[in-house]
């Protein structure tokens, strides 16, 4: 089949407008090939100057992450036919986002690794350690196995929308790695780790839960789900005292009380009633909403009625919590 590729180029030695450009290639290849195969075909037979990184070609080494048709992908795992739906459709290949480009499709992973460093990605066992092997249950490791599947390709970091606007965000890959050690029964620094991850700038509470990393991860690590697990562990360990944790609590309380969301009390309860400066800073916004009829002030009245089946909802709350308590004791 004929495949049309539009490839973003970057030449660090060129000046000004020459540094970044696009090259178009049309190649004739078998239908079953991957994006990486197509790039190799280009490099070997059409344009030897095209630079990209790869090694195993089998979705194991994590070297060939790129942005294809606007999304981070492992190019050795993405087939041309996954993307081309109509004949002659062009495929756009760009370097990963959120990191500097060295040349063409090769990005500088320095930031990726420094974030990985930031979460102390090794076991810190109790001292003294066990006399013999450190035995752990299968159950305890099962959940971690998925996280350990990370091959450090960087596509989740490439496409993370929070990192786009805040470079301090530790970002999905490293936070998922943090979970792998926090939840490892052999690690003795669980509480300290959670404290740090909760309090540090760019920590677990800055994730917007947008699912982008879950969507792009080629190994189904589901980094965002790990971040959510870290949040739950932080709350359980009693180290999460910030707005994010209070927001969760206030949200759950309102559903238990009304069966519905109590938006009038959610913001004050989240930022903290003692936090006068922050509450004041929200006043202009609240007034704007009130003027537009978007502040359901009557919902704040103490006699706001819960939904008809509230006793059933509350019963579900009680049951779920009792079960949880029994399970942890």
């Amino acid at each position, binding site marked *: 089949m004929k495949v049309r590729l539009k490839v973003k180029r970057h030449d660090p030695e060129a000046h000004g407008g020459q540094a970044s450009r696009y090259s178009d290639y049309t190649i004739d290849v078998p239908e079953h090939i991957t994006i990486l195969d197509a790039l190799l075909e280009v490099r070997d037979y059409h344009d030897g100057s095209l630079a990209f990184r790869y090694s195993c070609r089998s979705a194991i080494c994590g070297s060939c992450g790129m942005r294809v048709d606007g999304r981070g992908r492992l190019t050795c795992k993405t087939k041309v036919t996954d993307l081309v739906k109509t004949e002659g459709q062009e495929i756009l290949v760009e370097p990963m986002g959120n990191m500097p480009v060295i040349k063409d499709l090769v990005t500088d992973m320095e930031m990726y690794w420094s974030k990985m460093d930031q979460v102390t990605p090794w076991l810190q066992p109790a001292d003294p350690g066990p006399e013999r092997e450190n035995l752990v249950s299968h159950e305890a490791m099962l959940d971690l196995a998925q996280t350990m599947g990370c091959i450090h390709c960087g596509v989740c970091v490439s496409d993370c929308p929070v990192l786009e606007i805040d470079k301090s965000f530790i970002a999905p890959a490293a936070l998922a790695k943090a979970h792998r050690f926090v939840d490892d029964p052999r690690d003795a620094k669980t509480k300290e780790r959670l404290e740090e991850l909760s309090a540090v700038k760019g920590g677990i509470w800055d994730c917007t839960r947008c699912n982008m990393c879950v969507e792009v991860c080629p190994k189904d690590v589901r980094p965002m789900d790990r971040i959510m697990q870290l949040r739950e562990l932080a709350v359980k360990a009693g180290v999460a005292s910030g707005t994010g944790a209070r927001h*969760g609590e206030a949200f759950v309380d309102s559903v238990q009380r009304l069966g519905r969301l109590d938006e009038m009390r959610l913001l004050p309860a989240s930022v903290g009633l003692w936090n006068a400066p922050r509450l004041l800073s929200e006043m*202009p916004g609240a007034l704007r909403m009130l003027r537009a009829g978007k502040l359901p002030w009557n919902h704040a009245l103490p006699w706001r009625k819960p939904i008809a*089946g509230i006793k059933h*909802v509350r019963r579900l709350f009680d049951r779920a919590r009792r079960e949880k308590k029994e399970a942890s004791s």
Partner: protein
Amino acid sequence: MKYAFWPGCVSKGACPELYDSMILTCAKLGIELEEMYDGNCTGAGVISEHEPKLADLLNARNFAIAQKMGHDLVNICSTCQGVQSMVQEKLDRDEEYRAEINAQLAEEGLEYKPGLVIKNFMWVLVEDYGLDKLKEKVVRKLDGLNCGPFYGCYILRPSRILGMEEHPERDHYLEQIIEAVGATAVQYEGQDKCCGFPILTNNRKNSLTQAGTHIGSAKDQGADCLVTPCPLCHLNLDAQQPSAAEVIQRELNVPIIHLPQLLGLAIGIDDKLLRMNRHVVGTQAVLDKVMAAVEA
């Protein structure tokens, strides 16, 4: 066409214009809605963050209520859709877990049986109602109105639970609907990204930078307004827009229209009934364009 209608908490609270425009638009399109008055909050992903099983119980209760009513479930919130699809996938896959959940629902005389159809209004329009039929209902073609689609995360990701295999164009429906009512869909960077709402209380600057950046990029591509199927996105993009403009230090002033409002305008419902005045960012510029198209 009759659906069990789950309005979500926001259309009953901070976005009453969404609720009203949904009711009026569906009535005029001939889509019957039977509201789930006794449904409970889906938890918006917040409850599942801390108490996953509780979130499953609460959502299963809603599903069972819809099944008792005997209809497919329609929601008008990307966030509700994401949470509901996620829970449904879990319940439908795992018979043992489902039995455990159902044991808790039994006291209320409810039971969830796998296979309930749960659809956001946007999906219903394209898949059940049909764009051709929608086009027939248009009495005011929205010619010349440039709309930027804004989906909201949970109706796009994770795609494995959102029926994208069966319906691979679900991530383009908003553009298709915009074009069907005669308006122009504007493509821009950020249309499938996060509005920032979930971290508004926790990291206001990041949240508003995200909202502002997306609105700005739509504006750069010539959008007169954004259209969204998600009221939570609406809140961050509309109600917080003046603050977002301050944070990113750029003038924005881009109206944020709910999907049913866009349809309502096209099928000839009075803008006051659609509560186009219940927005923080004024919608007059949009209405002027609509009227100009009618007069032309």
